[in-house]
């Protein structure tokens, strides 16, 4: 049985979770191709035009694996942390419904509903439903999900040592190093959602450009989870979205971190949660006098535009240091 997984949104953050889950169930995984112009165009075609670019891309990726898989995995991810008021962006929660509404000719969707706040009974019911779809016993599904969670935990630990997801997964097999850097490199915290930071097409090669400029990059995944929880205490109220919380907390962690020269917040044009996240980070950075720049991505973001902005920001930091 072939399960199609779209390479976006939850893919980057939870890749090992999904992979282990389906391997454990004995399914074959087909991941959609890397984001490209073609995928984006398809996404624009299927999604409403008020949607943000990641959601459009998701539609494109679903289309991309549509004819190569028996099932398409569109999880309804509600809560993976067990924190009470925390879920995901409403667009994540309604993803299955969006895809179902606008893309008629698809293989059946695997809409696994994951809410770890729920009681055992409700979860069991969900395993049963999924089991029915796949023709497997609920016990087997529950077992696979538990081992998947373990895999995710060890992956997280690896991430906090400073590797981006692609590399962290490779590291599960072999050890790869971080590229060599100048002796006192400029250190930037690049904060934003994993599906923006690690998708080279959407962010117009932002990360690679920074690497090439000889900059040390820190990302939200590199902050140990315990530190994030400590930072959370300083905020008036937790945000309601898992990824957003991670971004805000890690940004505050980095603002406090004396190694960090500046903060880059990467956001999608029109992103709802980020209107709050961005303001929180901006106010905090302003108070502490840490340089901060917002980079907003949309369908028309070009490599040249990003490069100019990054260069201007880095030059400003060099100037502050007295290197220019």
């Amino acid at each position, binding site marked *: 049985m072939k399960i199609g997984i779209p390479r976006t949104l939850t893919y980057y953050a939870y890749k090992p979770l999904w992979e282990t889950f389906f391997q454990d169930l004995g399914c074959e995984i087909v991941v959609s191709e890397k984001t490209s112009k073609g995928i984006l165009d398809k996404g624009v075609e299927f999604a*409403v035009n008020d949607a943000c670019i990641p959601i459009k891309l998701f539609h494109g990726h679903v289309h991309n694996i549509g004819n190569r898989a028996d099932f398409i995995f569109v999880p309804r991810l509600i809560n993976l942390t067990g924190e009470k008021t925390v879920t995901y962006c409403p667009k994540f929660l309604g993803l299955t419904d969006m895809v179902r*509404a606008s893309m008629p000719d698809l293989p059946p969707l695997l809409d696994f509903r994951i809410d770890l706040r729920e009681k055992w009974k409700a979860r069991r019911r969900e395993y049963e439903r999924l089991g029915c779809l796949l023709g497997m016993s609920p016990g087997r599904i529950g077992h696979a999900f538990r081992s998947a969670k373990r895999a995710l935990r060890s992956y997280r630990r690896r991430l906090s040592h400073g590797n981006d997801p692609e590399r962290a997964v490779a590291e599960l097999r072999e050890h790869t190093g971080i590229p060599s850097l100048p002796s006192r490199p400029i250190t930037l915290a690049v904060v934003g959602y994993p599906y923006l930071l690690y998708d080279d097409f959407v962010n117009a090669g932002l990360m690679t450009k920074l690497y090439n400029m000889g900059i040390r990059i820190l990302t939200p995944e590199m902050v140990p989870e315990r530190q994030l929880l400590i930072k959370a205490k300083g905020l008036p*109220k937790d945000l309601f979205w898992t990824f957003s919380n991670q971004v805000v907390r890690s940004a505050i962690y980095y603002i406090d971190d004396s190694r960090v020269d500046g903060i880059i917040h990467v956001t999608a044009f029109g992103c*709802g949660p980020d*209107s*709050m996240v961005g*303001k929180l980070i901006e106010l905090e950075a302003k108070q502490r006098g840490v340089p901060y720049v917002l980079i907003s991505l949309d369908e028309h973001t070009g490599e040249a535009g990003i490069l100019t902005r990054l260069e201007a920001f880095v030059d400003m930091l060099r100037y502050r240091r007295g290197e220019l």
Partner: protein
Amino acid sequence: MKITFPHMGGVYIPLKTLFEELQVEVVIPPFNNDEMKGLGCKHSPEYSCLPFKLILGNVLHSLERGADTVIMLGGSGPCRFGYFGHLLNMIARDLGYRFTFICLEPSTLHGDIRDFIKKVGCGYRTFLRALMLGWKKLEAVDGLQKKYWTCLPYSRDKEKSQTVLRNAVDQIAACRSVPEIKSAAAAGSNALDSLRQATDSLPRVAVVGDIYTLNEPYSNQNIEWLLAEQGIEPCRSIYTSGWVKNSLLPWNKKAYYCRAKAFAKGYLEDCIGGFALDTVYHAVSSAETGFDGIVHVFPVTCMPEIVSRQVLEKISLEKKIPIMSLALDEHMERTGVETRVEAFAELLHGKKHNVNQNL
């Protein structure tokens, strides 16, 4: 203590009543207008939704005029509304205002109210009586509004109907007892009826969307008025009082959501925050109860409504009901909206005409 709160349709009436009965001074911002919008937009994050911008405008305006306490509703997501208060607080403080901020979170509601009562120095009794009086006013005003919109397209003199409504609402707002409210509401309702003129029945559309945009005419470009002008009867799906009854009272909540989920089945399978489920529910139920069209209004970056917008397209196809979507932000041009409403109205009238001829 000088207390203030942002506008949302008629909620200023019960709140004003509540605080005045408790002898607390109230600062009410002017009704939403371009000044409020400008003020809010200037200090809001760019992508926040229009409701936030207007609310921020309201609060900043009142703070400028000497308010020292801001009261707002919190919430537990997953839409942005629950964080509005805190963000607003941070922005206003960053601008140098100093004030007490009361955020009514569902989880700490009892404690908050107790503290408030202690601060004001009134008894529970007085508080409850004032609250009840306010609530009755809200119900009366919403009932009258509903009546007004069903009568307006049939009205002989629309301007006059509007004046009648305004006067009646002002009267209700000034009442000091429940019987007074009742008679004021009845008088208003009769006056609206008397302006009605007998004609063929006009097309009816359900206006769906999030609560703020629906109940705040400034933020929806006065869509209901535009529809009525074109001879279409608008029917707002959520009124504030109805929402409080359905979604806040614990004994109604479950039944309401069960019903909503049953209607939304196959379209939206889960509660995804904001008013997406309500929107889908009302869209499906109005398609099934013989409405001629649906108008969907929502703020541009509203996450839940973007999901429901995509789902509504499917509903439109499957239930064969025309839908007009209006994404609203601060740059919206009035003329653009007018043209779209005109075109939509023409479509509905044409359809209705055909049906009538075929009968």
